Structures are given as structure tokens and as C-alpha cells.
């Protein structure tokens, strides 16, 4: 049995032993190397070395597989959160649009629905962050607060 230490340039370090020509890896890949493999930042040579280990070590392979699943779920959650945020921000706009569309189908309530659409549209306009900032800029400007106005405007521009 030949025992030797295998080092690579980026710390892929594991103690391996050779018995009948079959390498048995004793120490698994580090957290950093595994994350770099998942992140796809390793060079092709390093990737090959990591894949060689993964093809034999079920523990590391399971880790990569689990991390991939968690990150995938996490990104799906982010998309859902973004969608929820968008719906929350545009709640009144959607309501206004629906009221406008229904006003054509429910002719008995045409004016009521049209008024509701207009009110909800106005609510959406005045509720949006841009409008709120513009109102604050206008108020600061009216008061003659030059510094405040400039600060608000710079915040508005950098957003």
C-alpha cells in the first residue's frame, strides 16, 4: 500500500492511499473548494481534480447535490418574493385596471367602476415612491430649504 499526500495549486488537498491501483480518498474536499466548484470559478484542471474526487466520494457528492438543491430553491424563493413585492407595489394599479375593464362588461355600473378606476389610479400615483419623493422635493423647495432639496434630489437621482 502506497500512501501519499496530494496537493493542488488551489488547496484541493486530500490524503490518498493506493491499493491495487485504486485510489481511496481519506480526507474530503474543503468547504472553500466545494463552494468554488459550485460557483464555477475553478480552472478546468482544478474542476477535473474535484470531479475525480466527487466521482468516488459519496459524502462530497451529496453535499454538492444538496447545496445545489438549496440554492435552487432559494433563487425560486427570491423570484416569488420579487413578484410579491411587485404585486404589493402595484396593487392599486391592478385594481384600477380591473375596474376599468369591468366597466365595459357591467354597463349598469359603468360610471361607478370608471370612478373607482380613476380613484385607484390616483392612489397608485400618489403612493409610489417616486411621487412621494417628488412631493417632498416640492415641499422642501416651497419652504426654501435649498440644502434639503438638493439632498432629496441627489437621493432621487442615485436611486
Amino acid at each position: 500500500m502506497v500512501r501519499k499526500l496530494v496537493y493542488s495549486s488551489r488547496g484541493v488537498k486530500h490524503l490518498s492511499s493506493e491499493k491495487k491501483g485504486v485510489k481511496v480518498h481519506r480526507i474530503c474536499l474543503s468547504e472553500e473548494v466545494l463552494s468554488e466548484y459550485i460557483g464555477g470559478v475553478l480552472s478546468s484542471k482544478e474542476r477535473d481534480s474535484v470531479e475525480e474526487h466527487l466521482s468516488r466520494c459519496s459524502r462530497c457528492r451529496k453535499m454538492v447535490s444538496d447545496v445545489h438543491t438549496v440554492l435552487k430553491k432559494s433563487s425560486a424563493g427570491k423570484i416569488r418574493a420579487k413578484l410579491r413585492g411587485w404585486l404589493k407595489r402595484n396593487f392599486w394599479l391592478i385594481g384600477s385596471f380591473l375596474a376599468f375593464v369591468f366597466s365595459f362588461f357591467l354597463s349598469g355600473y359603468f360610471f361607478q367602476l370608471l370612478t373607482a378606476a380613476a380613484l385607484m389610479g390616483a392612489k397608485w400615483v400618489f403612493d409610489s415612491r417616486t411621487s412621494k419623493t417628488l412631493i417632498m422635493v416640492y415641499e422642501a423647495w416651497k419652504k426654501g430649504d435649498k440644502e434639503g432639496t438638493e439632498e432629496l434630489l441627489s437621493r432621487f437621482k442615485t436611486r
Partner: protein
Amino acid sequence: MYYNVCTMPVEELLKRCLRKERKAWDEFVRSYDNLVSRSVRYKLKSMNIHACGAEIEDTVQEIFLYIWEKDKLRGVSDVSCLEGWIAIVSFNFTSTCHMRRDARDIRDTHSLEEFHTCDDVSVSLGEMLESPTLNTEDMVYTNELVDLVENEVLKLPVKQRLAIKFNMYDGKKQKDIAEIMDLPISHVSTLIKRAKNSIRKGIKNIIDV
């Protein structure tokens, strides 16, 4: 919102966290709390451990404390790997933590040889358990087959071996394998197909496939 979005660039956040700036650290915890929590839940589920919300919350806090105290963030060389690294650290910490707890719980286990008295009859715990019906011939055949397939898998080139192991052993879809191995799906599909053909050829002499 369900997910907290980091307000400063991740690279900047990492640098400031390494300088142990309290504000940056708070931001870091806020940004990655969800990922750590998700990883802990996933790991516990895979270990068949049922934990309540408070226990999970405790583990999440311990993980952040561990990263802070051991200065673990120094090991992150690329920000694009940060999420994967956090998930790996969370997995390792959760499994280590629960392995220690399991070791403590061993004291409460009972031996199968232990005798119990039931209706004035003394029986061992092992005798009380129902024995599953085993067919030794089938088991030997299955074990031989498993060894045979394992030997054929070991003969495959690295990429084919990894792809087939992800696919057959871990139940990953071809799309996921392509994402992990950073290869096109068609390439992964070819690798798996070739690997299956090679294994089939290798065991053809023993059984009819």
C-alpha cells in the same frame, strides 16, 4: 418582504465584515439569514430529525456566531461562491451539532439482549421485535449484482462516472447535473447514455439485460 436584499455590494460587505464592523455584520446576517435557515431545515429533514422553529432559530444563530468567532469568512475567495459556501458551512455545522446530540442520547438506548418481563414471561427485546422475512438467495444475488455494477462504474471515465452517480445514485435530473457540472444538457445526456451502455456491456456476460 420575505427576502432581505443586501443594500451594499457583496464584495464591500465581505471586506467590512472581515474588519468586524458591527453594521456590516448586521447587514450580512439580515441578508443571509434566510439561506442559512433554509439550509438547516433541509439538512435536518435529510437526517430525519424533527426540530421546532425555536431550535432551528438557535442553530441559525449558532452558525452566524461560529462564522464570526472563527473568522471563517476569510476562506471565501470569490463573492460568487459566497451563497454556496454559506450553505455548506450550515450543512456541516448542523450535522456536527446533531451528531454530538445523538452521541449524548446513546445513553438512553437499550440493548436487544436486555430482558423484559411481560405477563410473567421474560423475553428479550430482540425476541419482541418481528423478524422480517429474508430470502438469502435473493440477497446474495443482489449483493453480487451491486458489486458488479460498482466495478463497472469504477471503470468509467471521470465525467461519465460523476454524471451517472448524480443521476442514478442521487436521483438528480439531467438539467440539474448540467448546472452542477457546468455542461450543456445534451452533453450530460450523452455522458449518461454512454455510461449506461458501458455498464450494460460489462454485466451482459453475467445476466441478460
